[in-house]
C-alpha cells in the first residue's frame, strides 16, 4: 500500500517539476531580441574560462566596457571548448539558428557557411572602423567572391622551436640549410635524443613539416596554386617533399609511434626535454615565455629558428613562412540585431588587438605597435619577423575544403606511419581536389 502511494506521489512530483522547468524557461526562449528593453546580442565563442583564461578575461572585459558605453545592449555569451564548438555550430547552422556573433576559421571552413547564405559581409566595418588596422593579406582569408565574411583575431606562424641546451651539449649549430638540419638530426639520434617530436595522429602538426618542405622545394606559391587548380598535387616537388618526410621517418628523426600521438602527447616530449625540436606555431609562445605554469629554467632553454632552406629547391627565401589566421568573428545574416552586432565586432577586434599580445600572448591579426609595449624578447623578434616576411602561405588544410582537409590529415598520419607511399599520398589528394574543381 505504502509503496503505491510513494510511487504515485513521486510521479506527481516529477510532473510538477517538469511543468516548472518548462514554465520558467519558456520566458527565457521568447526573450530573443530584447530583455528589459535592452537589445540582446548572442555571442558564441570558444575560449572557456578554464583552458583559455587570458582570452576569456580579455573578451569579458571588452564586453563589460562595451555594455557600459551602450547601456541599451546586453551581450550574452555561450562558451564551448573548440571541438564542441565546431559540432554545435554545425547543428545550429542546419537549423538556421546561428548566434548573432560567432567564431569561424578562414578559407575552407567559412565557405560552406557563406555559400549557404548564413553570414553577413563585414566589409563596411573593415573599411571604416577598422581601416588599415589589419596586417595586409590576413582578412582576405575570410573573403569569398571579394566580400569579407569574417574578421580575424589571431595570426599564427610556424617555427621550429628547439632546446638550446641540448643543441649546445652536442655542439649543434642552428641549421640554416636542410643538409645542416639532417646532420643535426643524425647527431641527436646517435646520442640517443629524440630529434623532433610531432603529433602526427592529429594530421595538422604533421602537415607543418610537409608544408615547409613543399615551400622550400617547390617554392612559396606551390601549395596555394594547388588549391586554386593552377598546379597539381602530383607535382614532382610535392612528391619529393613527401619523400623527404619519409626519409626523416626512416632516419629516426621523429618520436617513435608519432602517428598515434596527438599534438598534446607529442608536446609532452618537448616540454619534458626528451625531444630537441618541435615544429609548431606561435600559439605555443606563452609556454616558452610568459605562462606561469611552466618553469623559468625550461623557458630559458627554448629558442626558435626558421625552417631551413633546401639545397636546389625553388623556395630560396628563409623568410617565407607557413601560417595563417586562427579564429575570426562572423555576424549571422539572420540576426535581428545585425547593426549592433557589427558594431560590437568592430569594437572587439580593435580592443582585442590592443590587449591580446600582452595579456594572452596571442599575436593578433591587427598591427601591433611593439615600441609601446613591454614584451618578452621572443615576441619582439617574432613580430619583427612578421613585418619582414616575404610570404606567409596559409596552412594547406585551412585553405582546402573540409573534405580535402580531412583527407589531407588522414594522409599526413599515414605518410608518417609509412602506410602510404609519397606517390599515393600525392595522387589521392590530387584526385579529391580534381573532383571538387570539376
Amino acid at each position, binding site marked *: *500500500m505504502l*509503496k*503505491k502511494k510513494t*510511487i504515485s506521489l*513521486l*510521479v506527481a512530483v*516529477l510532473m510538477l*517539476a*517538469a511543468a516548472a*522547468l*518548462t514554465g520558467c*524557461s*519558456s520566458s*527565457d*526562449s*521568447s526573450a530573443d531580441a530584447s530583455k528589459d528593453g535592452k537589445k540582446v546580442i*548572442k555571442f*558564441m565563442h*570558444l*575560449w*572557456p*574560462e*578554464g*583552458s*583559455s*583564461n587570458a582570452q576569456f578575461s580579455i573578451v569579458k572585459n571588452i564586453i563589460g566596457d562595451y555594455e557600459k558605453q551602450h547601456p541599451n545592449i546586453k551581450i550574452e555569451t*555561450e*562558451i*564551448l*571548448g*573548440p*571541438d*564542441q564548438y565546431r*559540432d*554545435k555550430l554545425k*547543428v*545550429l547552422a*542546419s*537549423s538556421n*539558428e546561428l548566434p548573432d556573433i560567432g567564431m569561424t576559421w578562414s578559407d575552407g571552413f567559412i565557405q560552406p557557411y557563406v555559400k549557404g547564405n548564413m553570414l553577413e559581409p563585414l566589409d563596411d566595418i573593415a573599411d571604416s572602423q577598422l581601416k588599415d588596422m589589419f596586417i595586409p593579406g590576413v582578412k582576405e582569408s575570410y573573403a569569398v567572391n571579394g566580400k569579407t565574411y569574417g574578421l580575424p583575431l589571431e595570426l599564427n606562424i610556424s617555427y621550429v622551436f628547439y632546446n638550446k641546451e641540448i643543441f649546445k651539449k652536442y655542439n649543434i649549430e642552428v641549421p640554416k640549410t636542410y643538409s645542416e638540419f639532417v646532420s643535426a638530426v643524425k647527431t641527436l639520434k646517435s646520442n640517443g635524443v629524440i630529434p623532433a617530436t610531432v603529433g602526427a595522429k592529429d594530421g595538422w602538426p604533421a602537415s607543418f613539416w610537409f608544408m615547409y618542405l613543399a615551400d622550400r622545394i617547390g617554392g612559396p606559391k606551390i601549395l596555394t596554386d594547388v588549391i586554386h587548380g593552377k598546379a597539381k598535387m602530383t607535382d614532382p616537388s610535392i612528391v619529393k617533399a613527401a619523400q623527404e618526410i619519409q626519409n626523416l621517418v626512416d632516419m629516426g628523426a621523429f618520436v617513435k609511434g608519432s602517428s598515434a600521438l596527438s599534438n*598534446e*602527447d607529442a*608536446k*609532452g*616530449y618537448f*616540454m*619534458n626535454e*626528451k625531444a630537441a625540436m618541435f615544429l609548431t606555431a606561435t*600559439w*605555443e609562445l*606563452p*609556454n616558452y615565455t610568459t605562462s606561469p*605554469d*611552466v*618553469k623559468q629554467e625550461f623557458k630559458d632553454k627554448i629558442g626558435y629558428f626558421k625552417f631551413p632552406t633546401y639545397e636546389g629547391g625553388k623556395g630560396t627565401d628563409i623568410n617565407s613562412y607557413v601560417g595563417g589566421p*586562427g*579564429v575570426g568573428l562572423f555576424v549571422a545574416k539572420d540576426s535581428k540585431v545585425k547593426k549592433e552586432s557589427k558594431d560590437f565586432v568592430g569594437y572587439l577586434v580593435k580592443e582585442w588587438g590592443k590587449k591580446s599580445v600582452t595579456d594572452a600572448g596571442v599575436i593578433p591579426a591587427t598591427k601591433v605597435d611593439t615600441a609601446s609595449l613591454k614584451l618578452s624578447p621572443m615576441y619582439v623578434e617574432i613580430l619583427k619577423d612578421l613585418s619582414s616576411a616575404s610570404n606567409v602561405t596559409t596552412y594547406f588544410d585551412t585553405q582546402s575544403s573540409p573534405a580535402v582537409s580531412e583527407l589531407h590529415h588522414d594522409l599526413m598520419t599515414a605518410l608518417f606511419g609509412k602506410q602510404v607511399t609519397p606517390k599515393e599520398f600525392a595522387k589521392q589528394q590530387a584526385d579529391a581536389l580534381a573532383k571538387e574543381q570539376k
Partner: protein
Amino acid sequence: MSNVAYDLQTKTTVPNSYKTSSTLGKRIGFGILYLILGIIAVVQIYPLIWLFLFSLKTNQEVFGMSPFSFPHDPQWGNYAKAWTQGHINLYFFNSVLYTVIAVVLTVILASFVTFAVTRMSWKLSGLVLGLFMAGYMIPLHSTLIPLFSFFKTLHLINNPLSIILSYVAFNLPITIMILSGFYRTLPREIEEAAVMDGCSIHRIFFQITLPMTMPVLSTTIIINMIYNWNEFVFVNTFISSDKWKTITVGVNNFVGQYLTDWGAIGATLIISIIPVLIAFFILSDRIVEGIAAGSVKG
C-alpha cells in the same frame, strides 16, 4: 534473517562432502582463484587511483612521466580551479536534477512497458518490443540535427526538458531490453494467484511484480544513472545557458584551442565521480538485499 541461517547451514555441510577429495588441491585451487580475482581487482581499481594522481599533476608531468608516477608537488589548486573556473558549483545541481528525474522516469516507464509486453497478452506485444529494441540501434550523432530541429519547433531549446526527455527516450530501449530478460524468468504463479484473488492489474504490478524485480531495477538504475551522469553531447547541443549545463560540460571548460589543462580536467572528473560512486555503493547492495527480501516473502 532466515537467509543467514541458510547460508551457515550450507557452508558447514558442503565442505564436508568435499573433504574426501584432496583438501590441499582445493586450497591451491582457491589460492589461484583469489590470485586471479585479486589481479583483476587491481586492474579495475587502478584507473581511479591513476585519475586521482593525474588530478594533482601539472600538464608537464601528465605528459612526461609514466602513468604510475606520483606528482612531485601535488597541485591541489587544480581542485579549486575546477570548482571556480570550471563552474562545477553551478553545474553540479543540474547534473543531479537531470539524472534523478530521468532515471526515475526511465525505470518506471520501462517497467510499465516490460510488464505489459511480457506479462500481459495482446497481439502487438512482439511488434512493440521490437520497436523499442530497434530504438537502441540508431547512432547518436545521426539524431542530433533532427532532434535539434524537433526541439526547436517545440521551443524546448535551452530548456532542461529537452535533456531529460532525450535521456529518457534514449535509455528506454536498453532498459526495457535488460528488464525483459529478467521478467521472462519470473514465475507467473504468484501473479496468477493474485488474479484469482481478484487483485487489480495495477496492484499486481506495483505490489507483486515491481518488488520482485527490485534487484534488476537497482541494476538498471545504476546503469541509467551512469549514462546520464556522464552524457554531454545532448547538453552541449541543446543547452546554451550556463545555468542549465551539467558537470560533464565542466570538463570541456578545460579543453582549449591550443592548450588543455589536464590537471584541472582530472580534478573535475574526480569531483564528478564522487556522487556516482556513493550512489553506486548504496544501490549495488540493493541488488542483493532486494533478493533477500523477495525470497523471504516467497
